[in-house]
């Protein structure tokens, strides 16, 4: 059992999460090892970001810098951004196209697969007819490649793992989550619309929890409750994989404003009966055939990514931890290659609701920061995640924190091993 995890005191089950689960560097390092660097697939990007041979994207798995690159034969490779020679983090551009990796320090070069191919002065330098220096005769380039990650793709989404014994991606996602993953990424060509990057001063798990918490959207987010995009009386469903680590929150937009029987959800102070948009194009929502009903599906793939469909706005949100009290949150908004110009415009307009300045999502970063502040000052205390009971299970409503309890059941299984 992890020593850091053994110090945590759980009152019972996982409905009361110790604040200390968010405030310890030792625990955080253990989480990186057990969730990000072994036995899990981590998100690294979309195939559409590296469409052509030689295209690369620098990104991160956990706190380790890696490079996703499309090889000359079209295959996708992911290598760690650390030169085998002097450890330099050699790739500085964040994207581009190249034929080989070259570390600027001593010009060691690697193929796009990460194999070492060139070491300057390996066989020494001739001076006055004598060969001086060079690498030892037994130096074997084959033993000194870049660290190669295992790579898997599904529907244009690229995952990588430092652990070459990781289970197949489909098994990792599990049969309960795969259909929701495939609904969004059904193999259609994607079109990248752009990025947003924010640094949130809170523990990375809080972002997973935020998207496993269907309790808050209809309370914190005025736009969601007032315009009926996400509220407690919407038709909805919560599903988890067998380990309870991944989840999908599925919701269908219902009434906006007040309606018969809606008093319970519209009495909340964030509901604004008289609020009307001056420019309703923010919510120019057009249903798409692939939705098959639900207007919002938020999928959390543990530990590294959130897949967003909120009406016509679709994105991936990549979690890149930076110590126990901070993470970078990278949004990649996309559309589909066959989108009409009108649909692209609609996705871009609705993007105003999301991201670090979004009418809806800006709130989430703020509350995460302030939760972290509470944890830091009172690490002996614990949260309460008991809405809907203390058990873990799928539901057909959203008045529950069961997904958070489920995630911590899995967290305890892994961390207390």
């Amino acid at each position, binding site marked *: 059992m992890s020593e850091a995890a053994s110090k945590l005191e759980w009152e019972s089950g996982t409905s009361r999460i110790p604040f200390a689960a968010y405030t310890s560097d030792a625990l955080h390092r253990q989480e990186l090892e057990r969730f990000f660097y072994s036995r899990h697939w981590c998100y690294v990007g979309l195939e559409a970001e590296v469409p052509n041979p030689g295209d690369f994207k620098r990104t991160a798995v956990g706190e380790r810098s890696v490079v996703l690159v499309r090889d000359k034969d079209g295959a996708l490779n992911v290598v760690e951004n650390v030169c085998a020679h002097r450890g330099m983090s050699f790739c500085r551009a964040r994207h581009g196209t190249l034929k080989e990796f070259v570390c600027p320090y001593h010009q060691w070069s690697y193929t796009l697969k990460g194999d070492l191919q060139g070491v300057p002065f390996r066989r020494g330098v001739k001076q006055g007819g004598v060969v001086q220096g060079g690498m030892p005769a037994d130096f074997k380039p084959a033993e000194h490649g870049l660290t190669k990650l295992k790579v898997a793709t599904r529907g244009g989404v690229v995952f990588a793992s430092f652990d070459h014994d990781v289970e197949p991606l489909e098994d990792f996602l599990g049969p309960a989550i795969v259909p929701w993953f495939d609904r969004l990424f059904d193999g259609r060509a994607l079109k990248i*619309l*752009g*990025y947003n990057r924010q640094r949130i001063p809170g523990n990375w798990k809080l972002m997973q929890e935020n998207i496993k918490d269907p309790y808050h959207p209809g309370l914190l987010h005025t736009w969601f409750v007032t315009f009926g995009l996400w509220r407690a009386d919407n038709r909805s469903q919560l599903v988890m994989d067998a380990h309870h680590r991944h989840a999908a929150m599925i919701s269908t937009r219902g009434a906006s404003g007040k309606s018969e029987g809606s008093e319970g959800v519209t009495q909340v102070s*964030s509901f604004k009966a008289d609020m009307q948009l*001056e*420019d309703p194009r923010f919510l120019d929502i057009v249903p798409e055939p692939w939705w098959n009903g639900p207007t919002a599906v938020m999928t959390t793939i543990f530990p590294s990514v959130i897949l967003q469909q909120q009406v016509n706005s679709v994105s991936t949100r990549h979690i890149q931890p930076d110590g126990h009290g901070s993470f970078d949150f990278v949004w990649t908004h996309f559309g589909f290659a066959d989108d009409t110009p009108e649909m692209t415009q609609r996705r*871009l307009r609705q993007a105003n609701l999301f991201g*670090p300045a979004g009418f809806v999502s800006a709130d989430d970063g*703020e509350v995460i920061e302030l939760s972290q502040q509470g944890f830091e000052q009172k690490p002996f205390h614990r949260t309460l995640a008991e809405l809907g009971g203390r058990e873990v299970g799928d539901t057909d409503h959203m008045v529950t924190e069961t997904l958070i309890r489920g995630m911590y059941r899995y967290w305890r299984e892994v961390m207390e091993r």
Partner: protein
Amino acid sequence: MSDPSPITRPKLDFETYQALLQLYAEYASAVDSGDWDRWPEFFTEVCSYRLVPRENHERGFPLATLAFESQGMLRDRAYGIKETLFHDPYYQRHVVGVPIVRKSEPGRIDCEANYAVFRTKLSELTTVFNVGRTIDVVVSTPAGWKFESRLVIYDSEMIPNSIIYPV
């Protein structure tokens, strides 16, 4: 590139240039004042306000952090700041450079300026919040000079959690 040599750089008469400086200064003053309703008034009814990471701008990606197309959208944002967006309160302070005039014709100026925004949270130190430049189209209207288009391109690679108030 698009930057004409100093010799061919467009000249504005003093009165127009002074009006332009005044517009920039008043915009900064307004967005730092906390009176969010003043912000939409700096724009024409049909307008473009886009807050864009430099990365998206330079790579030709259309996504903006915020993208508004009318004074109505700007007023919706002002309402959001006041009424719907939960956020930790903060002060912001713009420091705006002298505008470069790229092009001018009667009633219309294409210009740019560098800016830095500092953020001060209550009980905290002041930090650099967001840094970049604006690429603007300013037009003369019966109500004075207004922004027809304001493209705010920020260098800052990471947004420090969130952007609530207008830049």
